[in-house]
């Protein structure tokens, strides 16, 4: 090892790195809060006429924030669509097949069209139907058709071991969205017992929050 590299090695220890990263995180957080402050100030200036309304909304928000967290808030904090693993695209590829078109609509958040495409794929039965049903249910959740999403997720959660953890995760979120925290809790408990869980940490966090 060269002398220069030895010197460099001495320079990095966990505590130093932690301190440096803490500074970086502070700088990022400071910028975020300063931006929040600036935005709020300019909004106040622009919308002076609507000040009384803003005050009312702020007071209402403040009152709501004092209350316990609702299941819907937990849903909003945790929900994000599952990435498209069925037809991952490269830039040079064109979108040709029904499957590619459906999943492309899913990726660009055109969920209604995606659902139509998924229905066609399910009728043709020439693709992994368990996966397609999952993506359909997530699309339904995204456009607030929660009941139908729950129905699909609950009915198919045991269909395929590969997708079971995803089904249970989105089913628990759907229950939260539907204001059914007890069912969400039970589903998360089942998910926590699964050998493979793509949301292991989030599952435990949600369970902890729901039990308090």
């Amino acid at each position, binding site marked *: 090892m060269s002398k220069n590299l030895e010197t460099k090695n001495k320079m990095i220890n966990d505590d130093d790195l932690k301190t440096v990263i803490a*500074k970086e*995180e502070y700088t990022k957080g400071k910028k975020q809060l300063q931006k929040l402050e600036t935005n709020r100030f300019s909004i106040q200036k622009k919308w002076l006429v609507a000040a009384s309304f803003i005050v009312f909304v702020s007071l209402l928000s403040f009152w709501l924030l004092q209350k316990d967290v609702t299941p819907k808030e937990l849903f909003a904090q945790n929900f994000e669509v599952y990435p498209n693993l069925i037809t991952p695209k490269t830039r040079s590829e064109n979108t040709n097949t029904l499957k590619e078109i459906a999943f492309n609509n899913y990726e660009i958040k055109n969920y209604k069209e995606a659902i139509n495409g998924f229905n066609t794929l399910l009728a043709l039965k020439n693709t992994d139907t368990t996966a397609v049903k999952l993506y359909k249910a997530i699309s339904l959740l995204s456009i607030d058709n929660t009941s139908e999403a729950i129905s699909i997720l609950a009915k198919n959660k045991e269909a395929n071991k590969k997708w079971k953890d995803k089904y249970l995760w989105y089913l628990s979120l759907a229950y939260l969205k539907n204001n059914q925290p007890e069912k969400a809790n039970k589903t998360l408990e089942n998910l926590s017992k699964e050998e493979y869980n793509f949301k292991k940490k989030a599952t435990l966090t949600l369970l902890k*929050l729901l039990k308090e």
Partner: protein
Amino acid sequence: MHKDTFLLEGLKNGNEKTLSKVYLIYKSDFIAYAKKFDLSKDDIIDVYQDVILALRENVVSGKLTALNSSLKTYIFSIGKYMIYSKLRKKNNVHLQEFNEFTNTEINQDYDFLFAKELTQNQKKLQIAFKKLGKKCQQLLTLLFYNNYSFDDVLEELDYTSKDVVKSQKSRCLKTLKQKIK
């Protein structure tokens, strides 16, 4: 589930929305409290931002895992200490108000990493860290600052296996060393 626990979980998981939310919830009360000291509005806002970032650091570092009082009380205790520090620099401390800080050893809750003066080596490390790619910065931040396990990182950053996370960590540290001048 109590609101305070929910907010602490959000801060721990690096949720930016939660940081803004906590900031806004207690801001007006804090400003009202801080007005009795000899500080401008800008100074108060600056201190309050640091208070919220200090809270986040304490949550992430594991110094604060559970609250003995309300989150508001905790925020105000940090705030009071930061106001004291600011006024002390101006030689303008009302001693009676700040007795708790003058006679005792400083509580570890008020010992913030981000407020520390960097050593020469740490400054070099900081410059090198800024030059790292975003992925490496994110990975090292989760491992060294957020105290994530390899399993946690695997889930958070969608790596394919724990071994990939481990080797990526080694690569990032190697790159970091190479960038130190």
